[in-house]
């Protein structure tokens, strides 16, 4: 890496080398039984340089190709965007614990055992259900070096459990599922399977809803599938700069319900979304986005922060193998003071939404969402009475979150990128087909 940097600075004003290598082992169950054991090894190196004030960029998987790396990056620099930023000088990073050596020593046998513990209770509970399960462990090493002497070097471990079940009854299908992840080895297969059993219990009976406006409780998974992608776009500094965020000019203004608080936090210990620094070597920090309903901040990388005359929030991400770009690490919605059972008890007629399918397909920037309830339940007179089907829920995130009836007392991690409680909305448009 040092030699790539040395070659690059000979032809550029500034340069940065980013190298990541990962190794992952996955045990996969198909149709209720063990089917695949996979190991994936990957390395890649990316060179970003600033030449005549413009950014050049190239990546390669092979250290042996470093000559073409420098020449490819130089070739793109003639068209590159003007660099408004400086690469970070050496700095100290917050202590963010993301590595547990125990992960690498979990044996294949133990992973298979965990997979069996995910599948067995579910198939015992519901005959005929078909489960897929995955147990995965891995490590990632990241190293960043730049021509201002900035450098970062960290290792991260991750471990995950997941199960999805599908139950077919003629042309009626039910989908259930749950997953968990950590930087520690996980052993809570019983808890994950237990969530699936609860879903199966609640979905046992069928219920139908009328097509009209109804109160809706989004479970944490429901929040993730219906409400979060518009917010992730709207708080992105790049969208704000382009004027494409509906809240970009609302800093300091009340846009959401007073009960709503949101922040981005890559410093939570032993979460796979955490890291001591971002992919540009900027120290990680917790960034407040909404405080008591008021827009309090946006997330930035170096370039967008410079253009917005502010500082990077340490959200430079190379998720897609390209140049760094602002991206959330993990969004966290603050818990409220209402139990899920209290929310349900409060509803005369309404819905609980666990999975909304296709919600992110519409006008995401504008906050509109509209999706089919893949997993959701009807509430009647304060009780969940059964699963709904052929039902669409539509709304606008900004209208929904402007007036929230209640926020749940307990928050849950969903999909590794969001920690959220239940959110209870007083009225949403529901369309259904009998």
């Amino acid at each position, binding site marked *: 890496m040092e030699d790539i940097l040395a070659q690059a600075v000979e032809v550029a004003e500034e340069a940065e080398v980013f190298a990541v290598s990962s190794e992952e082992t996955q045990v996969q169950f198909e149709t209720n039984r063990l089917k695949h054991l*996979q*190991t994936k090894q990957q390395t890649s190196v990316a060179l970003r340089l600033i030449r005549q004030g413009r950014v050049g960029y190239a990546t390669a998987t092979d250290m042996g190709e470093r000559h073409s790396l420098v020449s490819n990056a130089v070739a793109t620099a003639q068209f590159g965007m003007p660099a408004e930023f400086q690469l970070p000088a050496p700095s100290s990073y917050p202590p963010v614990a993301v590595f547990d050596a125990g992960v690498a020593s979990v044996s294949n046998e133990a992973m298979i055992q965990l997979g069996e513990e995910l599948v067995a209770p579910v198939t015992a509970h519901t005959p005929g259900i*078909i489960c897929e399960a995955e147990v995965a462990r891995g490590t990632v090493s990241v190293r960043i070096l730049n021509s201002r002497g900035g450098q970062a070097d960290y290792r991260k471990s991750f471990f995950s459990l997941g199960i999805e079940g599908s139950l077919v009854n003629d042309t009626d299908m039910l989908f259930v599922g749950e997953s968990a992840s950590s930087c520690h080895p996980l052993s809570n297969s019983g808890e994950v399977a237990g969530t699936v059993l609860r879903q199966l219990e609640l979905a046992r009976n069928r219920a139908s809803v009328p097509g009209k406006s109804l109160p809706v409780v989004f479970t944490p998974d429901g929040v993730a599938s219906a409400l979060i992608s518009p917010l992730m776009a709207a708080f992105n500094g790049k969208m704000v700069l382009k004027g*494409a965020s509906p809240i970009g000019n609302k800093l300091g203004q009340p846009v959401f319900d007073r009960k709503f608080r949101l922040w981005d936090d890559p410093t939570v210990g032993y979460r796979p979304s955490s890291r001591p620094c971002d992919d540009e070597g900027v120290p990680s920090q917790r960034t407040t986005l909404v405080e008591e309903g008021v827009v309090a901040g946006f997330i930035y990388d170096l370039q967008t922060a410079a253009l917005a005359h502010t500082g990077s929030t340490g959200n430079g991400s190379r998720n897609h193998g*390209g140049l760094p770009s602002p991206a959330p690490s993990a969004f966290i919605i603050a818990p409220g003071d209402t139990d899920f059972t209290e929310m349900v008890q409060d509803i005369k007629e309404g819905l609980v939404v666990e999975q909304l399918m296709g919600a992110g397909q519409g006008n995401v*920037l504008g906050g509109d969402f509209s999706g089919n309830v893949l997993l959701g339940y009807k509430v009647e007179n304060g009780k969940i009475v059964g699963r709904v*089907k052929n039902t669409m829920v539509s709304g606008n995130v900004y209208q929904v979150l402007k007036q929230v009836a209640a926020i749940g007392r307990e928050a849950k991690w969903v999909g590794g990128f969001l920690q959220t409680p239940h959110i209870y909305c007083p009225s949403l448009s529901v369309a259904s087909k009998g």
Partner: protein
Amino acid sequence: MSIKTAGQELAEVIGKCDADYVEAHLEESQTSHIIYRGRELDSIGRATAIGGNVRAMVKGGWGFVSFNDLNNLPERVALAVEQARFVGREASQLAAAEPVVATVSVEADRDPAAIPLVEKKQLMDEYNDIIWRTPEIQTSTVGYADSRKKVIFLSSAGSFIEQERADITLRLAAVATRDGDVQQVGLSVGSRGDFSALQSLHDEVAQMARRAVALLSAPQVKGGEYTVVLDPVLAGVFVHEAFGHLSESDFVYENDRLRRIMTLGRQFGRPELNIVDTATIPGLRGSYQYDDEGMPATRTYLIREGKLVGRLHSRETAAKMNEKPTGNARAINHRYPPIVRMTNTYIEPGTVSFADMVGDIKEGIYAKNWYGGTTSMEMFTFSAGEAYMIRNGKIAEMLRPVVLTGNVFTTLENIDAIGDDLAMNQGGGCGKGGQAPLPVSNGSPHIRIGRCLVGGG
């Protein structure tokens, strides 16, 4: 080490393994991308990548090892075999395959890597300028990506296939805003390496930008059931999402209850309905000569005269269902094992003209253009980038984007008119099992669906 040399080295090793079957893929790719967000160039770059994998089967269990370091190949093979042995507990079943030794090259006029970056950038500049010239446009995105890839497939049965392919995608979006309201319209196109297919979109780009502005004054549809007419692009997404995924045998082959639903001969639609998947049409993004298990591409009728007559297979699903292999095992890259995927999927043209299709609709929706789509096998949702009310047989006011949802089985039955104007859409990419976007194409003539659930505000 070149992947060819690595392939020759692997061929020596995998023939001698103590496994029921071993295959390997070696891949090298050159890619470039140009992204504008707003007026400014956001990212431009080139990348090269190499990598490979070894997949082994022992007693019905699969081991899979992927890597992008071409050293220690014999050890990777040994690990894959050891993993397969670790999970295998029954009998291996794979449909018979003739060993193939072949070389498939990219046509010289279809090599995006041969076109200078400056020429690609100039075209993107032109399109972005068109968007920005439109009043009330707040911002734009232009995302261009191309790849040229060479994959070597080899198997313990003696296959050694070198295949090259090229792919280009272009996604454009225009965002319009007024008084805090944000509306966007997108355009997705693609080609199998032919850059000239992207070079004359100026009028379409201008229309797209004007439509984004027009959406600001468009009403939301009132949610409910409507008669819906889909344009070829959206009908292509519908056939892919709503039916194509159900035809992928890996969902079906070990699921007895699903097998009962997907019984060959079952009536799914009216006799006018014919659905085909084929990788054999030259020049389409989903086409190839050999799939990632080294099987030759085929043309498969999924629905013929309204009846289920076929499905898509890998070697394993074909063997387990005792059906003919179709050559539909594909992987997006060397990091993933091949799984059953679609290629180019379309509804065959019928006889109804567009005017007749719309003519007797009192109140309905004309939905056009792809925005996105997803399926849970039984239920699907897909969204239209452009929609209009149909009133008294005429296309009426423009609507904000609509989301259509339904049950696959009843919706296919509810297709009551099939147009005479088949068109293929090359702008799509398919995701499954974490593998996205896979180059596919979809197509259809205009179709009419009765009683379709439409979500509104």
